[in-house]
């Protein structure tokens, strides 16, 4: 193999989202938290989208969530991302929703409300928070 696989599209962090991607490098998932109203949100930005306060801190996330909705890509949009793959809108247990992938199972087995846990995977220079099926909350303890 002389040709390396093309690098998939890379995130383009800005001053507000850089800490999120830095945390992913440490295998940690975090959102922004409003110090005034307690709202936990993604993506991080200059103010709280709920109360517009600029007093923000970090909200550590458990990495557990559920499939809110998903699509199975049957065609490839980028040479670095061969089809099929699943893009899901993941609802994290702390509240924010995050676009990501469901990995570790067949695309056909993905279901809405399926419990998930984060799985960090390298992609080019970045570490992406992808998600894999997890056991039900009740069965975990």
């Amino acid at each position, binding site marked *: 193999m002389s040709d390396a696989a093309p690098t*998939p599209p890379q995130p383009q962090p800005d001053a507000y989202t850089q800490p999120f991607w830095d945390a992913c490098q440490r295998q940690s998932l975090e959102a922004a938290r409003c110090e005034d109203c307690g709202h936990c*949100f993604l993506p991080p930005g200059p103010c709280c989208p709920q109360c517009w306060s600029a007093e923000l801190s970090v909200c550590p996330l458990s990495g557990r969530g559920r499939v809110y*909705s998903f*699509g*199975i890509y049957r065609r490839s949009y980028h040479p670095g991302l061969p089809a099929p793959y699943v*893009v899901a809108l993941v609802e994290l247990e702390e509240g924010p929703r995050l676009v990501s992938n469901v990995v570790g199972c067949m695309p056909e087995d993905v279901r809405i409300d399926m419990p998930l846990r984060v799985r960090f995977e390298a992609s080019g220079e970045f570490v992406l928070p992808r998600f894999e099926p997890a056991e039900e909350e009740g069965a975990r303890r």
Partner: protein
Amino acid sequence: MSRRAVIAGVGHTAFGKLPERTSWDLEVEAARAAVADACMSPSEIDGLLTDPGPVQGVLDGITPHFLRLGAQLGLNPNYTGSEILGGAGSVAIVERAALAVEAGLCDACLCVYGDSALSAGSAYTYGRGDESAFGFFGAVGLHALAAQRHIHTYGTRPEHFGEVVVAARAHGVRTPHAQKRRAISMDDYLVSDPVVEPLRRLDCCLVSDGAAAVLVTTEERAADLPCPAISLLGHAQAHSLSTYASPDHFESLPAAHCGPKALAQAGITASDIDVAMLYDCFTIVVLLQLEDYGFCKKGESGSFVEGGRIGPGGTLPVNPSGGLLAEGYGGGMLHVIEAVRQLRGDAGARQVPDAELALVSGHGLGMNTHATLVLGRNV
């Protein structure tokens, strides 16, 4: 007689693949056609609003679209601008033109949509910011999330999505200028290639080169014109900009807010509508609008569209020109034009009998923007 705004003229180009044409010269053709249709003179045009379409507007960033077209048309208008609201842009500029005319900012405002999305290629496969790292691309991937929710929540079947495009293509057969004039069967739909499941290729609208224009003027000026003027009876916009953070973003459209408002302003309900010109970038968007505008109950759009109800001769003809799924991608301006033709009684083989009230919608970007017009025959 008053400064009440009416639509006095409509015009459009061919739609389809037109590689020898630029969006700019297509827009000029549509603009000339709309003014000629109204039997008005270019010297009367003192307003220009434009919707630059997906390639010029969304992908190239903010371009002075109105300036380029206005320069070619030799206009020094009293009111101008471009609106970038994705697929809600055309409907929104017609609304804005009506408000500008009624406020006295201008007397005759030309509203122009144009784009060369087909010749430019890949208009709808753009990455969605950081989310493209996860392979989240294009409008289809986004609308697949809404379709999946509808299937999950209401048990909507593939055949329900299929009914929408089978109806659109049946309408297209009767539309001489439609880009797709061949009817399709439910079997054609069911074997159509999946793109982003649950959406198939046939769930997705066409991509087109073309331009379309509408001329808005005062009722007083239109009284002297040969074509019947079409009145704007109600209008409203609503937008969902918080996207994922909004709990029901993929469950219902902002139409649920601006639809009842526009209908109430017109003094009617959804059941009074004779022709529904619903923005149809994807079949799921038609299903959601049937619910959110109140043509049926929430969750019941699947059974509502069964049996050809929105097709030719159905009890609620949706997009009798074929819409984005058959007529061509006209950014929503072709929807306005078809409503005008239906209300004029000027729609030929596809005329809906006794059409007096039409609803027109525009929907755009990441399911973020929505605009509604209620149009009526000027009586």
